[in-house]
């Protein structure tokens, strides 16, 4: 590069680096004025434009640069970022392949081409390139690239099964012909073992790991050690491994729980390895169990309070022995549990540790219970943790007989009392610390929730909210208290308070995928988007950021792991990328976003077409559920459902079935409303089409899939969602023939698109030449129009039925979530109806297509819908007004009397919680009510 040019180009790079994309564009323009054909500058400008989200402008430059078949390093690098930003990975591969072809000796280009294929999971091409590079450059690294790509290709679901062994054999041959042994590095050894394991050559694999070097590698490489354990299991060398584990535990003081598992597996192997063990086998097992218990007892004694592994392993061994009917002492389990408790009850995890081992019955349970009761004390800070463990463990074993409202109420009061009494222990802690008494408040909160479940009396939820708010104010960092409050506020119809607590948990990055379900499940029910309040819409957008980062960033690390030869990480990162990309929560959020958006915006072709394309992509995905429910604390007894189950909004959690139903509803609605047919869609697409999953379901024609109703999917819906589903499917079935008749032909559509394109500077549509016969959509139709039928009963009766449902709740329980659910679903039905009738709104369309009968049919449905929705809206506003009155607040305070009387915590505090809760409830009921009016006005 000449120095003048360098001087001109440096500012562009500088601007890009600092994110001043606008000045980068200006700097590019300056150079391009003098040198209009400078490919590097064009590429850099394209990059700046992509970063500015000016996709269309950048596409023109991008295509020009690609057409020049670049080989220059700077151009290629810039283009790599451009194409990644546009999601055009296949173009990227083509670009690098092209460059590599022109300079076949370039190692750099070979690598880039390989990595471009890696990023999109093109294992076959990747393997071919790596093989070629290895032949050319004779570098072991490329050999291993080739081997590992072969392995990944073999494991790829799209690879035919008969090809798999061939590929694996090939991989094995490649490794074993190289001069450098695989144990030159742990990750190479890892690849070698993996190949052998896939080929079921376990002996060969173990032989590699038991060499001196192999053993040394397993010492420092946990991944190789993990493979070794796996091979031992596959070979059935359980007893040998048990002996080894015993030695490691006793001599090397290894306290990895995996060693203890090996020890226990070996102790029981005589009876677990055969379906019906003989008496001798049982005797042998008993002998070995006895020996193992002795070993563990000794280790436990040695370790004292330092390590709980051996003590827990004793419990686990006895539990397993009992399951296999080779236990010799009926009270051993209890004795061990008591010993364990005596030793570790000052640790917070004592409860979780013991849970699986204390499911006693009858006499043993009675003894265990009285033992625990004897341990109860809250006198000192040191006692506190033990006292908490006592209460948790006692609660865990309560039977349904002991869970009457009276007894539960007594317990709740007891927990509150102990909580308040224990608070002073944590008084001097800084507010960044968790309070030691927190778990007592959690116990109280969960007990009140169980009382609500038992009695259906909402006042218990008020008590729960009061005590937990109190605890939250004292232990600001406790996210566990907030988790309970989030669920409780949803049940109380105060979603804004739930959202407040959720935000204080500071959920971010990948956590938004696993935790946003806490506030965004069926969020459309609580959203006031119709009134222009975009709180939930933006929460969806924010929570979806992580999926963008994933698709832009994660694959880079797959290629980086190749470059660093850390093969052991590659498959996991690929799995991670896939699980996040195809996350169920991602698309549940997407559906909520669509539902809220429809109430918020005008329904026009842009919205319809864009959502249609996106939802269809989602429909082809194979989803993974990454949502974390285990984070929600549970202190309910094992005889009843967990706290999470008790407080699920609407009693049901949307899963893949729910998602599929809503996708079907909206794809069908948008498909009818849209002019896009598949042939057109392809030409309007910018990035690559995502690879559809290998689900055989995806091979069935789209319309058939959309029409299919599946029992297991419908089971995930609430009864009212089911009614909405029936309405939507009957509606689209009714209207499909008229849409198909009236939709302009594709040729007309493409002509229009081309025309639009000429008007604005930008990207000329790929492969579009307007067909000569295009006449702007008004071509004469050959067929007669379909006869207009009346609306099917499911459609015409829907709104009336929703009115009845709503009235029943409004005059009955007035449960706020139920009211909102019914109101928003009725509104949603109206919006779907609007989407599917918007095409026929202009009188000219009706006339041109001779579908005159439709107008009165639509009018009838619409009139009913408007009437019902107006009534619902009025009723909601009325209930809202009544919900934040003084009487309601007093009722709240009266309800949480137990909490106050015992505690003496002040009336004002409870009043504050009452006011917040009733105000929040009023806000959402009123907002949804007014929102309905707005929606009706918008689509009058």
């Amino acid at each position, binding site marked *: 590069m000449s120095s003048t040019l360098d001087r001109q180009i440096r500012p562009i790079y500088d601007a890009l680096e600092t994110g001043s994309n606008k000045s980068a564009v200006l700097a590019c323009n300056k150079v391009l004025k003098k040198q209009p054909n400078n490919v590097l500058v064009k590429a850099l400008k394209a990059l700046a434009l992509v970063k500015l989200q000016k996709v269309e402008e950048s596409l023109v430059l991008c295509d020009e640069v690609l057409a020049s078949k670049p080989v220059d390093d700077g151009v290629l690098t810039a283009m790599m970022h451009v194409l990644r930003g546009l999601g055009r990975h296949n173009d990227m591969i083509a670009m690098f392949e092209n460059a590599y072809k022109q300079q076949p000796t370039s190692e750099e280009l070979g690598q880039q081409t390989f990595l471009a294929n890696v990023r999109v999971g093109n294992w076959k091409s990747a393997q071919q390139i790596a093989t070629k590079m290895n032949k050319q450059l004779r570098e072991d690294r490329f050999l291993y690239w080739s081997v590992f790509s072969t392995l990944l290709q073999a494991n790829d679901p799209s690879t035919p099964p008969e090809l798999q062994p061939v590929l694996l054999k090939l991989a094995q041959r490649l490794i074993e012909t190289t001069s450098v042994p695989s144990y030159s590095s*742990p990750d190479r050894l890892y690849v070698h073992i993996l190949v052998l394991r896939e080929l079921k050559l376990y002996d060969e694999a173990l032989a590699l790991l038991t060499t001196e070097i192999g053993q040394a590698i397993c*010492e*420092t*490489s*946990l*991944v190789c050690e*993990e493979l070794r354990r796996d091979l031992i299991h596959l070979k059935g060398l359980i007893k040998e491994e048990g002996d080894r584990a015993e030695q490691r535990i006793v001599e090397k003081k290894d*306290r*990895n*729980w*995996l060693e*203890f598992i090996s020890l226990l597996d070996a102790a029981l192997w005589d009876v677990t390895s055969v379906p019906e063990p003989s008496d001798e086998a049982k005797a042998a097992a008993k002998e070995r169990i006895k020996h193992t218990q002795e070993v563990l007892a000794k280790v436990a004694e040695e370790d004292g309070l*330092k*390590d*709980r*592994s051996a003590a*827990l*392993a004793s419990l*686990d061994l006895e539990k397993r022995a009992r399951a296999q009917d080779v236990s010799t002492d009926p009270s051993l389990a209890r004795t061990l549990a008591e010993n364990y408790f005596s030793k570790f009850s000052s640790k*917070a*995890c004592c409860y*979780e*540790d013991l849970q699986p081992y204390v499911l006693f019955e009858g006499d043993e349970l009675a003894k265990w219970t009285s033992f625990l009761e004897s341990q109860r004390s809250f006198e000192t800070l040191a006692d506190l943790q033990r006292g908490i463990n006592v209460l948790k463990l006692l609660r865990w074993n309560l039977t349904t007989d002991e869970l009457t409202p009276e007894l539960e109420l007594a317990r709740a009061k007891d927990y509150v009392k102990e909580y308040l009494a224990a608070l002073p222990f944590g008084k001097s802690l*800084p*507010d*960044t610390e*968790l309070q030691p008494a927190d778990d007592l408040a959690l116990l109280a909160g969960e007990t009140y929730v169980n009382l609500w479940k038992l009695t259906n009396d909402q006042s218990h939820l008020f008590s729960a909210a009061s005590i937990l708010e109190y605890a939250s104010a004292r232990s600001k*960092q406790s*996210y566990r208290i907030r988790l309970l409050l989030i669920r409780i506020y949803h049940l109380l119809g105060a979603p804004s308070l739930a959202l407040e607590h959720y935000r204080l*948990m*500071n*959920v*971010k*990055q*990948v*956590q938004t*995928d*696993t*935790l946003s379900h806490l506030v965004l499940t069926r969020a459309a029910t609580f959203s006031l988007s119709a009134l222009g309040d975009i709180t939930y819409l933006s929460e969806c957008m924010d929570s979806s950021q*992580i999926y963008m*980062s994933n698709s832009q*960033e*994660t694959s*880079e*690390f797959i290629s*980086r*792991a190749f470059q*660093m030869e*850390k093969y*052991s*990480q590659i498959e*996991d*990162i690929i*799995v*991670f990328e896939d*699980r996040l990309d195809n996350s169920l929560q991602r698309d549940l959020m997407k559906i909520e976003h669509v539902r809220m958006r429809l109430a918020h915006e005008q329904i026009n072709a842009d919205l319809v077409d864009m959502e249609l394309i996106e939802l269809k992509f989602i429909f082809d995905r194979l989803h993974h559920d*990454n949502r*974390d429910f*285990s*984070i929600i604390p549970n202190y309910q007894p094992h005889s009843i459902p967990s706290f999470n189950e008790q407080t699920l909004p609407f009693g049901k959690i949307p899963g893949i079935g729910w998602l599929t139903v809503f996708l079907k509803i909206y794809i069908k609605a948008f498909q009818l409303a849209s002019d896009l047919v598949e042939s057109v869609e392809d030409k309007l697409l910018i990035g690559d089409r995502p690879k559809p999953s290998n689900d055989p379901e995806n091979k069935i024609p789209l319309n058939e899939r959309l029409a299919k109703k599946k029992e297991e999917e419908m089971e995930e819906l609430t009864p009212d969602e089911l009614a909405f589903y029936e309405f939507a499917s009957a509606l689209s079935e009714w209207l499909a023939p008229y849409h198909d008749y009236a939709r302009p032909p594709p040729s007309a559509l493409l002509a229009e698109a081309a025309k639009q394109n000429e008007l604005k500077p930008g990207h000329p549509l790929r492969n579009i030449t307007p067909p000569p016969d295009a006449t702007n959509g008004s071509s004469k139709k050959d067929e007669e129009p379909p006869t207009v039928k009346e609306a099917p009963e499911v459609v015409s009766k829907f709104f009336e039925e929703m009115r009845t449902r709503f009235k029943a709740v409004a005059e009955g329980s007035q449960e706020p979530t139920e009211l909102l659910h019914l109101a928003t679903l009725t509104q949603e039905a109206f919006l779907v109806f609007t989407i599917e009738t918007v095409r026929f709104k202009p009188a000219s369309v009706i006339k041109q297509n001779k579908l005159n009968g439709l107008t009165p049919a639509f009018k009838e449905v619409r009139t009913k819908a408007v009437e019902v929705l107006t009534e619902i809206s009025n009723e909601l506003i009325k209930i809202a007004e009544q919900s934040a009155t003084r009487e309601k607040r007093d009722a709240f305070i009266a309800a949480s009397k137990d909490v106050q009387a015992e505690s003496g915590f002040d009336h004002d505090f409870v009043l504050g919680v009452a006011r917040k809760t009733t105000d929040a409830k009023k806000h959402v009921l009123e907002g949804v009510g007014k929102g309905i009016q707005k929606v009706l006005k918008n689509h009058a």
Partner: protein
Amino acid sequence: MSILRPFRATDLFRFNNINLDIWTETYGITFYFSYLSRWPDLCCVQEAQDGKLMGYILGKAEGLGTEWHGHVTAVTVAPEYRRLGIGKKLIDLLEFVSDEKYKGYFVDLYVRCTNEVAIKMYENFGYSVFRRVREYYGSLGMGRDSKDEEDAFDMRKPLSRDPGRRSVRSNGREIIVGVHDVS
């Protein structure tokens, strides 16, 4: 009782009980993957028997010449699993691998000068202050009454390759350097 196993990419879906705690920062995906794709053997987790994650450590190997060492980037344990020696086990592993595999001279870590509990704990593990780094933490921490919050102690522990303990010094607390002087 805990399982020591490699940190896996998919653990990011499961570390909420650890990361929702105020003292543990949740970074972007690239942060975790830049460690996993380079030093997978210095990244591991402790898992409870029921599959819950208890804690994890992320580390790296860096430095030139006698500065070649293992570095603890993050070590964290969920509140409910504290005071069980989990952190010690994680650090032991990192020291062991830094010693045996990477042949480093020492292991080091950074800690807020005000975090006395942690400093004491690391001293018990054999670490000592090597130097004080001014304004290492860009922001103030959560503590209430300390103005030295932004400073960090760089604490070190020599490994077997440094039998003469040349990588540590006794007056480390008095040696003050700027944030640009450290890597």
